[in-house]
């Protein structure tokens, strides 16, 4: 009896609360609605609910990604000029992403820019924002991640409408100035559901196509026909993000260099300088910040001007300055390692042939109870690896430890 009383009292209190905030959802309900905890459950054959096995799911996702990227030995566009267009219109202030769309986008763009320069050390990025119906160039093309990130974080306010046409016009005029060997790309992060344009956008799209600019769009709300058309015409990709995790995945797909399209960029020889590190303790004025600095820095081999960091373009003579590790950082795109084959425990009938430990990390490949765990093997050196090592080897290391550890197998490859 007393329990019922307490319950009724509790309900009354809740109703009063409801009247107060007027959203019609109980506080505890909101908790569930925000977390969407049911999405991390799946039903098995007997109808029981169980948490999704993230590890195998994650691995399957990675395998799909691997298959699409290393399909064949494709030429890659290694020297890229990428404009990132960020929509900061009213729609970017929406709070369906927490805390808001633009904050989430800025966070992912920051991570993306670092990853981009890690994978494409000879490429350049610039930022453009769409706001109040106009497009603004936030930063010019440059190779320093810090300056872009700083500029973006300082400008995070949303207002007005987004104009796709103004953005494309601005980017197209800027990209027309870059050298012919570079790959021209635009990545648009679009929050709005409409575009507010001053003229005929179809003409702008055709102009982008004629300038050989590859335009890709990642939407944050819903699919838009005009974005899809733009991407189809210019050879880019169009995706709409489901949540923050998916958004990150979609953005990061643009980090590895895309396949080169012969007519998009002309093969060319580029003159580059390999500066030597200046002796420690020497005082000189750097040409990039116009400040006197002690020690460190590099000297341009052509005009002997001092620059603070590599890679860059000499401010005085315009020579591209790189160091040999910058070039080496890109070589793994040119010599990708072969994807590993799945080893299914049922396929290998001979139990003695089954691997016991992962060749890379020495982790036991047997589940508790001596059941073989899922693993993969390299088709060249026939060593076995665990799933985590497989991902690490293909995504970060770009070496097969097995192939690198045996001399004779290497001479076959070479």
């Amino acid at each position, binding site marked *: 009896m007393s329990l019922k009383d307490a319950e009724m009292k509790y309900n009354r209190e809740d109703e009063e609360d409801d009247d107060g905030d007027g959203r019609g959802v109980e506080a505890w309900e909101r908790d569930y609605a925000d977390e969407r905890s049911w999405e991390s459950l799946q039903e098995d054959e007997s109808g029981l609910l169980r948490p999704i096995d993230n590890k195998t799911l994650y691995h399957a996702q990675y395998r799909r990604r691997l298959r699409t990227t290393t399909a064949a030995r494709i030429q890659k566009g*290694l020297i890229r000029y990428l404009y990132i267009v960020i929509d900061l219109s009213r729609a970017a202030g929406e709070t369906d992403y927490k805390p808001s769309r633009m904050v989430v986008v800025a966070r992912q763009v920051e991570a993306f820019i670092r990853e981009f320069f890690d994978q494409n050390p000879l490429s350049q990025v610039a930022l453009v924002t769409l706001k109040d119906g106009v497009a603004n160039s936030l930063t010019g093309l440059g190779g320093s991640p810090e300056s872009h990130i700083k500029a973006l974080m300082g400008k995070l306010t949303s207002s007005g409408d987004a104009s796709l046409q103004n953005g494309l016009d601005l980017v197209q005029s800027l990209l027309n100035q870059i050298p012919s060997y570079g790959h021209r790309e635009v990545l648009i992060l679009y929050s709005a559901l409409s575009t507010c344009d001053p003229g005929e956008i179809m003409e702008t799209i055709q102009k982008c196509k004629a300038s050989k600019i590859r335009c890709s769009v990642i939407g944050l709300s819903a699919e838009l026909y005009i974005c899809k058309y733009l991407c189809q015409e210019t050879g880019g990709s169009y995706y709409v993000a489901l949540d923050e995790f998916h958004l990150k995945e979609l953005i990061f797909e643009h980090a590895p260099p895309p396949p080169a399209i012969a007519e998009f960029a002309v093969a060319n*020889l580029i003159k580059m300088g390999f500066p030597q590190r200046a002796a420690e303790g020497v005082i000189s004025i750097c040409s990039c910040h116009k400040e006197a600095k002690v020690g460190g820095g590099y000297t341009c081999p052509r005009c002997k001007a001092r620059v603070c960091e590599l890679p860059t*373009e000499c401010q005085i003579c315009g*020579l*591209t300055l790189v160091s040999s*590790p910058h070039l080496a950082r890109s070589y793994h795109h040119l010599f990708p390692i072969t994807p590993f084959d799945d080893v299914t425990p049922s396929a290998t009938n001979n139990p003695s042939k089954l691997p016991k430990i992962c060749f*890379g990390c020495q982790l036991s490949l047997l589940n508790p109870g001596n059941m073989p765990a899922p693993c993969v093997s390299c088709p060249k050196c026939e060593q076995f690896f665990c799933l985590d090592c497989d991902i690490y080897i293909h995504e970060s290391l770009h070496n097969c430890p097995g192939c690198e550890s*045996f001399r004779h197998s290497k001479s076959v490859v070479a």
Partner: protein
Amino acid sequence: MTPVSSKLYADDVSLLMVLIDTNPFFWNSAQSTLPFSKFLTHVLAFLNSILLLNQMNQVVVIAAGYNSCGYIFDSSDPQNQNKRAEDLLHKLEEFVDNDQELCREESVDGPGFSLLSGSLSMALCYIQRVFRTVPLHPQPRILCLHGSPDGPGQYVAIMNSIFSAQRSMVPIDSCVLGAQHSAFLQQASYITGGVYLKPQIFDGLFQYLSTVFATDLHSRCFLQLPKPAGVDFRASCFCHKNTIDMGYICSVCLSIFCKHQKKCSTCGSVFGQAQTQNSSTTPDRKMKMPVDG
């Protein structure tokens, strides 16, 4: 992994991956003034002192042989608790015998090179596993005890390992035991923020190891460790293998040439007219001029 409460891991707990060069051709050659057995006594004493410095420290030894690489010792393995040195030496002997059996070449000119790239890759895989398994993990670092000359064929693989180590913030320390400097390890230590050292007197190897390489990463910021001497980041051209200050890069495959070519010898792309960065923009301007005027 021993079930240690992860709370106990402070910033001065180290995971030391030691890569030992076991290339027999190097150790027998005139280049090494230090016999392998003597080298091992120095290293064993060093490994024991690492394990004594902090009871949570972990040491893993990987051998980089002439024909293969292999794990030799792992201090976290419960079987290795009592007779560390004996186990290590026993495993090492097995490894060297195995390595010898794999040898197919009858004779080798000079000391040849050991499989540094393979052992580095294995060490990085192991470190990733440690990162994955415990939320609070010991600070990993890699120490290369290397003597053989650099193998030019391993350049891409070693650079890939270096960049991966840099991304995971794993410093690569190197102690070079050979006669010449190792350009690979110089770059590895410079890029990953490790220490590069080429000892002058091998009789005092233990002293070098214990004073330079025994300190954990946190304590390093209070010490004056050997500064990286000039690292040469100049590239060598693919056509004549000359070291160059300025050169031409193929925009498709990034091959380096010292002179202007008509066609890339690596990827076969045919180049347009000679264009440097400066002149590539000038033709456009010239084109526009008559139109404007």
